[in-house]
């Protein structure tokens, strides 16, 4: 599944200072759909190169990280259970270091 992931507010520093990543993520084995929970663990494994605790806390993003799926607050689409679809744009923006 082709997705565009954007990191901002300092989170890009955790992934080689690259802000926009066009990625191909496959749903986990035995599942047909990809949900945000799967995507977060994929990001944790594949994109975050340092200080993962600045991005994740438990199996979700660290509190204070704003997540937008197609410009929409993920709190409206079920957070970790949000189902992702082809060509979705997911934005992670944080206030790691003030602003």
């Amino acid at each position, binding site marked *: 599944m082709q997705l565009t992931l*954007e*990191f*901002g*507010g*300092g989170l*890009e*520093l955790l992934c080689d200072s690259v*802000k*926009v990543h066009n990625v191909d993520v496959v749903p986990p084995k035995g599942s047909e759909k990809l949900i945000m929970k799967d995507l977060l663990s994929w990001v944790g494994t594949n994109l975050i190169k340092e200080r993962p605790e600045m991005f994740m806390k438990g199996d979700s993003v*660290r*509190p*204070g990280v*704003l997540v*937008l*799926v*197609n*410009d*929409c*607050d993920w*709190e*409206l*689409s*079920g957070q970790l259970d*949000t*189902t992702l*679809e*082809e*060509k*979705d744009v997911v*934005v992670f*923006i944080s*206030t*790691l*270091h*003030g*602003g």
Partner: protein
Amino acid sequence: MEVAESKSKKAGGRLCSTCNQRKAALKRPKTLEQICRECFYEVFEEEIHQVIVGNQLFKAGERIAIGASGGKDSTVLAFVLSELNRRHNYGLDLFLLSIDEGISGYRDDSLQTVKRNEIQYGLPLKIVSYKDLYGWTMDEIVKVIGLKNNCTFCGVFRRQALDRGASLLKVDKIATGHNADDIAETVLLNILRGDIARLSRCTLITTGEDGPIPRCKPFKYTYEKEIMFTYAYFKRLDYFSTECIYSPNAYRGFAREFIKDLERLRPRAILDIIKSGENFRISTSTKMPEQGTCERCGYISSQKWCKACVLLEGLNRGLPKMGIVRSRGQNNERTKDMKQNKGTKNIESKQCGTLDF
């Protein structure tokens, strides 16, 4: 078209609770309402307008410096204030005020952002450098003192830099981008430190009214999430980290994290903490430190010399550690009950590691 359709389906067909027409884009932390982008911007700006009017933050004809770090809070503040000033005829003369600490490579991005803001919002920009203000750049200071104690300098110099820059600009007031999350964090930290003097001051929307240049916080009741949402949309990711490169291990906000955890469980917590801070009453037996002015530079100080002058004296005399060790002996007759009030540890929580003021 298939894609577009399925995308609108995903939001669960949730409609904006204000207009009932458009798709909701944000869950407001303050009210838990789901709201569309258009309605959100409207209430966002209107609420800030109400805060400004209700608290009489500004008077017509005043010159106001917006402390501009290039980060999201001050960028959104510059945008909102210039909008509201136009729309509601505040009659304010607005400026952007930025500080250049003189750290090579570090300010390039943020000063670029501020320069763009200057053009976008038509607000004149004044950049004041540490070299102008103190005779030393941060790079030069670090060369002398090493990396270990430099954040004392960062914090102390940064706080004063804004005031000194503002007096250069001859402004009547400084507006900073501190938001509700910042203030809740400061309340907690002041409680944790037992710093009653600061606890009672930190929730005030305007401070320093007895001093030369008062400061105000138009975002006092504005959640960081909403500022980020605003910012993420119209600036997209034209945004960068503002971590101070001289402080890789700076205190990283235990209190901040605690507040964000609370917010996730109960978003009201942030406003409740601010309310708690506001409602603390100081018993009359607690002696408040006297506010005087520095004999050297005239900056507000409870001691003979302000912290910056002590640090500068050390630098200039080749004794850079001077003023870094907590200076309890000095002037302690003034503030016996408050213990160390103006010491190095009391620089506000966002001191270093960020470019904020």
